[in-house]
């Protein structure tokens, strides 16, 4: 019996959407199971780290890794998987560019932890308990102490390729089942694209596959930016031409313009195109290019820009961690995290 390719799937800082997209393959999943052996997949099967360690180096054909690298544990696991795998694929926006969790890089770790565990409106934490490296739990009834160890967080969230060598990327937040399927086909065909390629998606920006592109006026010029929570888009008219900040022009296609079909502007989850160095940088020069101000009135332009409350979150929604300016300076070791706490 000829050996089937061995596939590993690991999750780092992820929301679960990527795993969901795997399940969304639906009946096509059966074909996947026919074609490959899954050797490691903590989301669905009970494998342990030791199981991977035992495998010979280079014995995994493809390792799919989703989520950003936030914890020491992620770092160790992906390094291990790199050693054991022929091909490593960054799966989804978080793994490829840091994703939404990467926006935490706007703060240093202390600020981020305080926000997360003390300040957000949905949290109730009167004792102000923060994560601790080691917790010693006294259990008087059993006259014993139990020790719990949590993996240490890294000072900033990193995209996968800042930690290990990455062969391919599958874009999306999460990748659509079709994109995943296309990528699998390409990889299993043995006809491998050049290293570093983004697989499964389009080589053109989203406008190419958006049906509203035909409705664009000859020149796209906008005077103000609208937001879908404040104004209702007209149907069947390019959202950008209506003034909605659509990231379509600057974002890789491949999703078949799903959001646009739902009357929501593209937020850019398929990321940058080949040859672009920095997604947000390109996005800003694109917005600058369509602002309709001549002669330039400082105040008016400021008004237009102020209409978007969170610029970083808009232009780097999925890629701050991989941007040229990727994090707040001084993201040092957190002071608030205690070494040991006994409760």
């Amino acid at each position, binding site marked *: 019996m000829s050996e089937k390719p061995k596939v590993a799937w690991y999750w780092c800082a992820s929301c679960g959407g990527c795993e969901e997209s795997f399940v969304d393959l639906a009946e096509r999943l059966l074909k996947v199971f026919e074609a490959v052996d899954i050797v490691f997949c903590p989301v669905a099967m009970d494998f342990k780290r030791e199981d991977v360690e035992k495998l010979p180096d280079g014995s995994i054909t493809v390792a799919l890794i989703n989520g950003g690298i936030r914890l020491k544990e992620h770092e160790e696991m992906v390094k291990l998987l790199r050693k054991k795998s022929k091909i490593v694929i960054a799966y989804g926006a978080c793994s490829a560019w840091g994703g939404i969790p990467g926006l935490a890089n706007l703060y240093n770790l202390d600020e981020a932890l305080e926000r997360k565990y003390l300040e957000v409106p949905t949290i109730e934490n009167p004792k102000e308990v923060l994560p601790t490296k080691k917790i010693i739990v006294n259990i008087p009834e059993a006259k014993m102490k139990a020790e719990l160890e949590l993996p240490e967080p890294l000072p900033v969230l990193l995209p996968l390729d800042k930690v290990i060598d990455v062969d391919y990327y599958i874009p999306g937040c999460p990748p659509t089942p079709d994109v995943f399927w296309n990528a699998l086909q390409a990889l299993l065909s043995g006809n491998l694209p050049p290293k570093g390629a983004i697989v499964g998606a389009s080589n053109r920006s989203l406008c190419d596959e958006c049906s509203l592109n035909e409705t664009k006026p000859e020149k796209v010029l906008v005077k103000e930016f609208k937001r879908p929570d404040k104004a209702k888009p007209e149907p069947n008219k390019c959202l950008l031409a209506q003034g909605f900040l659509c990231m379509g*022009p600057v974002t890789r296609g491949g999703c078949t313009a799903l959001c646009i079909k739902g009357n929501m502007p593209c937020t850019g989850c398929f990321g940058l*195109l080949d*040859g672009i*160095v920095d997604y947000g940088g390109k*996005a800003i020069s694109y917005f600058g290019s369509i602002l309709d101000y001549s002669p330039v009135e400082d105040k008016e332009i400021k008004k237009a820009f102020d209409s978007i409350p969170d610029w970083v979150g808009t232009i780097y929604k999925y890629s701050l961690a991989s941007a040229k300016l990727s994090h707040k300076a001084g993201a040092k070791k957190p002071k608030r995290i205690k070494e040991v706490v006994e409760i």
Partner: protein
Amino acid sequence: MTEEPRIGVYVCHCGFNIAGTVDVKKVAEFAKTLPNVVVAKDYVFMCSEPGQDLIKADIKAHNLNRVVVSACSPSLHEITFRTAVSEAGLNKYLLEMANIREHCSWVHHDKEKATEKAKEIVRMAVAKARHLEPLQELEVKAETSALVLGGGVAGMRAALELANYGFNVYLVEKAPTIGGKAALIGYVDPKTKGAEIVSKMFDRVKDCPRIQVLTNAELIQLSGFAGNYIAKVRLNPRYVNEKCTLCGECEEVCPIEVSNEYNFGLNKRKAIFLPFSNAYPPYYAIDYRVCVKCGECEKVCRFGAISLKEEPKVVDLKVGSIIIATGYDPYRPFKGEYGYGLHQNIMTLFQLERLLDPDSPTKGELIVGNKIPKSIAFIQCVGSRNTTPGAKEYCSRMCCTTAINSAVKIKEKYPDMNVYILYKDIMTYGSDETLYEEAGKKLVQFIKFEEKIPKVSITPEGLFIDVFEYTIQENLRIPVDAIVLSIGMLPPRDIEELIAVTRVSCGGEGFVREAHLKLAPVEAPTKGIFLAGCITGPKNILESIRMGSAAAAKAMSLLSKGKLTIEPMIAQVNEEKCSGCAICVGVCPYSAISIKKVNGDRIAYVEKALCMGCGTCNAACPSGAMQHLGFKDIQLLAQTRAVFGGEMNV
């Protein structure tokens, strides 16, 4: 190019210009350490014959496929070195200049630091050179005819020049006659009438079959590009044809009377009128804007010269080049500015010029308010040099000479009249200075004011001017019979339309801007469009005429071959990557980009002859599909990485 780059670096001393501040030997040694550099040399004058030969010999000996010349600004010698490398068989776009003179040696003193900076500049140039690609110039067919817009002295001169050298010209004039303002200036110097100058030019234009004069005509749309423009011109009806004998009977019966702009409002004219006695073309015209079509003139004309049925027409003219010579507008003083509009004896310099013209309502006599004044005062810089709130900052250059010239003329004719000239500074530049002397001899009285401008009072006793005389530091009160406001020049009122149609741009003063005053004079930034006369700013007739000749010469060098070479350093679309998002279309200042369908996909298309290589679309394209050849992202990124000391291999 797939072959490995083999780069030669040539560091120029430029005598002491560079070598005095930069250790050129060290720079050459450093260059040798850079990736792909196979030879690096320094030489005293790279641009000299032996310097160029050095490069040519090395290209052959070392099989170089890229050359970096580290010397002066590319605007100075890039062409020299491009020619040199192409003579050695290399594509001329495989040359990169590293400017270590203007950007380094000339602006620094510290030799050590300047040398370090020169090394960095060379490092950047080498980083870019590694990514250079050979480019090919393109050729397109070009029309050999030209369109001259505006029939003043500048436009007429340009048209005559072109026609003399065998090119066909359309002279498109908005008014019913050509001639412009010069035709209305009584005397341009004490002996020459403005009308005479334009008459001589009219004769030549008339005798020249290659010039087609289109009056009452407006350029309403301009499409295409250098060599292949299509100018849409609207011909407004004149209603009077060449059968007109200038008998003037029509004028008698016309019931419509309006202010006569050709006499600057000194008198009235009818709806059917002759702008001035020697107007060209030499027939009456009906002002289509005011005519009520009563038909009286048509009835009275014995020669069948009038037809009120004429309709406006639109014609498409195919031309290779455009010369814009639409002149200026005289400054319009506001009501009450030095009493203007409040007293009939207060007039503008242009109105005075009309009065002094033998073709005027007073037949050249200086009659104001029914009599010849005993005294007259000119107030200078009206509308210029920040004198009043509406005034411009610049000097209009003509008003001093014209005022003094008129003063001399008045003194010749009426020796007993008291003539005053109230001035800020006298700007009779060049040979006009003799006029100033002449005026002094004729006892024209010059009164200097500074920041505090003269005050005109209209009283029952007559007109008075209060002025603080700056040289004698005294307040004077001068009673005068007439006042002349020496008005300056403004950009034409309809300049916005001109800009919209021709895509030229304006400088700070509101006149049309030349591409570069010293390096590209007379040229508009758009290829194939040239500028002449006062449309670029105040000038006298002589200067306007000269500029007309210069513009014609430039147009001819473009038209003469019947084809055009297109610079290859322009924008190029990668059709595999372009999504047709159209972001680039809106940013192109030259409207060179449109969206076309290619195999059903929307794809950006760059009209090569229109692209001026500004690079804006490259920066705007969100996909990286639009690349500026010679300045591709990959080339600029390599350069940027090099300057930050980054890895040279990208």
